[in-house]
């Protein structure tokens, strides 16, 4: 049974499933719908957490007054310097909230708690834009009586923010000697919108001498030559942002010592500095929960986004196959040709206005592609819980001229042992040519 047949059969079965809601739960839903506060169009979120809203509001007013009376904030790249009386909470900075469904830049709420001899900064970052961003933030402490402070914990150097993702990061400063009563805390952040193609993998950076080093470098160079952004990252939970490292192939590093990956990619245009604007700010209460003055959560995405990201191409290793997305809205033909040249062995999936589309015969002809539709994708090696290494490849052999609209195409995801040619297991992956 192929996947399509399985899905259809399962959905037919699910239509017969019945879910009778617990009357107690139904009553709560009914109460929510009848709420007069809600009917007025004001927010009364039923979550227990916002019962403390008046307390948060009072804190916000206090923080705002404190900031107004204090020296004006020093403008930096989206940064502020604010005096902090020990041990109060100070306001934060972030992008201006708009009524649009999506933000124009990630929201960054940075707050600081100063208690004892420790100043702890917390950055809460939410990407409610339709783009992927990388973001870095920095902190500082200043005081005329300051003899010595050390940064005990630095912020992550670069945070990767897929659309809809969020994360919390911290930075900590410790006083060497007696802590002053007041402390000026400064912070700034810069967001870079990712506009170029990217090669993204999660299985680590191989060092010289390690197995797979040469293959990885070869892949990096191929992607680099195709002007893709090279990103190495650890794993993190879905919906959460995480720290990443921008990578340059070693060959390029040797030729251009001293140039950082960030500098290179900014110069190339793959990363565009598009820093967030200042906003009213928000505060952190004693329990470090972030709130905003209007007590609203971030705007929700609604409707279907026709163009998901402005990226021309993404690639991911770390899934079961090398995977490309080419959004046809953005100069897809040129992007596709470039990708095809950069990754001649890859399996391609083309997106047209957000819809998945295999490389059909007509499209192949239009794009001037004469090779087989999906040839042999690069293998992906992975380690199971027992430490054994495996390899996964995705293969198919459909000549372009035999592919027609409506055809069902089955690829084989082949799982095997590293170094072995015989497949241990095969998994069909089926697509329909639209």
């Amino acid at each position: 049974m192929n996947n399509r047949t399985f899905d259809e059969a399962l959905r037919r079965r699910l239509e017969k499933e019945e879910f009778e809601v617990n009357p107690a739960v139904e009553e709560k839903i009914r109460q929510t719908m009848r709420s007069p506060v809600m009917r007025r169009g004001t927010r009364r979120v039923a979550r227990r957490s916002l019962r403390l809203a008046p307390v948060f509001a009072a804190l916000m007013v206090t923080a705002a007054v404190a900031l107004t009376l204090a020296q004006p904030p020093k403008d930096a790249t989206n940064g502020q310097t604010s005096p902090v009386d020990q041990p109060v909470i100070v306001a934060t900075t972030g992008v201006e909230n708009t009524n649009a469904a999506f933000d124009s830049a990630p929201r960054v709420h940075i707050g600081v708690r100063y208690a004892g001899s420790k100043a702890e900064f917390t950055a809460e970052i939410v990407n409610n834009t339709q783009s992927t961003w990388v973001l870095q933030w920095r902190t500082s402490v200043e005081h005329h009586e300051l003899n010595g402070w050390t940064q005990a914990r630095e912020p992550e150097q670069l945070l990767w923010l897929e659309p809809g993702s969020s994360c919390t990061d911290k930075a900590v400063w410790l006083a060497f000697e007696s802590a002053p009563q007041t402390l000026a805390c400064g912070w700034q952040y810069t967001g870079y919108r990712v506009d170029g193609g990217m090669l993204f993998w999660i299985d680590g950076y191989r060092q010289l001498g390690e197995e797979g080093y040469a293959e990885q470098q070869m892949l990096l160079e191929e992607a680099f030559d195709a002007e893709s952004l090279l990103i190495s990252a650890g794993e993190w939970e879905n919906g959460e942002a995480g720290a990443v490292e921008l990578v340059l192939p070693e060959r390029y590093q040797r030729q251009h010592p001293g140039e950082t990956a960030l500098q290179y990619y900014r110069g190339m245009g793959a990363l565009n500095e598009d820093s967030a604007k200042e906003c009213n700010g928000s505060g952190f209460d004693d329990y470090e929960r972030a709130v905003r003055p209007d007590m609203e959560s971030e705007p929700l995405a609604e409707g279907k986004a026709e163009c998901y990201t402005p990226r021309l191409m993404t690639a991911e290793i770390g899934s079961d196959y090398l995977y490309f997305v080419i959004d046809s809205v953005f100069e897809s033909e040129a992007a596709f040709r470039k990708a095809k040249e950069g990754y001649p062995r890859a399996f391609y999936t083309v997106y047209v206005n957000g819809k998945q589309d295999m490389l059909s015969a007509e499209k192949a002809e239009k794009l001037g592609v004469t090779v087989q539709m999906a040839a042999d994708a690069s293998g992906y090696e992975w380690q199971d819980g027992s430490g054994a290494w495996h390899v996964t490849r995705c293969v198919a052999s459909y000549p372009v001229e035999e592919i027609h609209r409506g055809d069902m195409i089955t690829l084989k995801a082949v799982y095997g042992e590293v170094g072995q040619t015989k497949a241990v297991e095969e998994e069909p992956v089926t697509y329909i040519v639209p």
Partner: protein
Amino acid sequence: MDKENLDMRIWELRAPLLRVAGGILRHTQNAEDAVSAAIVTAYQKLDTLRNEESLRPWLTRITVRCCYDLLKKSRREQPSMEPAEAEAPLFVSDIRDTLYSALESMPTGMARVLLLYYYEGFSTVEIADALGMSRPAVSTRLMRGRKKLKELLLEEQMRAEGVEAHEQPNL
């Protein structure tokens, strides 16, 4: 769509929305809270709904977002997301043989993708958008989840029929 009409439609969708929230949060009280928050948001953002026919996916996405808000908040506050003792179930009907029940035994990341794909009919692109994942990651989880589901259904069929395994589950 006026608010009276929205009342009726939301009431009709209460079970699917609770199923989504329950599948993501796996906690009755929090699922109730997430759906309540989603309903409030839906009323407030009703003017942003462009097409009445897309109410269900729109409301589902809002619910997913509210669930993630709740998860993020619970991580900050670090309360236990473990089900409370003798917690009342979301559903009183027998769900033992449903896909929803099967999903409860799967890893949360995989279960969320399968929930939206099979119950809500979301495409992989829509799931990626709703869950904040990359599309390849959704495809991978879907592929693995489908494989797992086939195994589960085959086991279920074997138990029901008391026979040896067939090559494919009979749905």
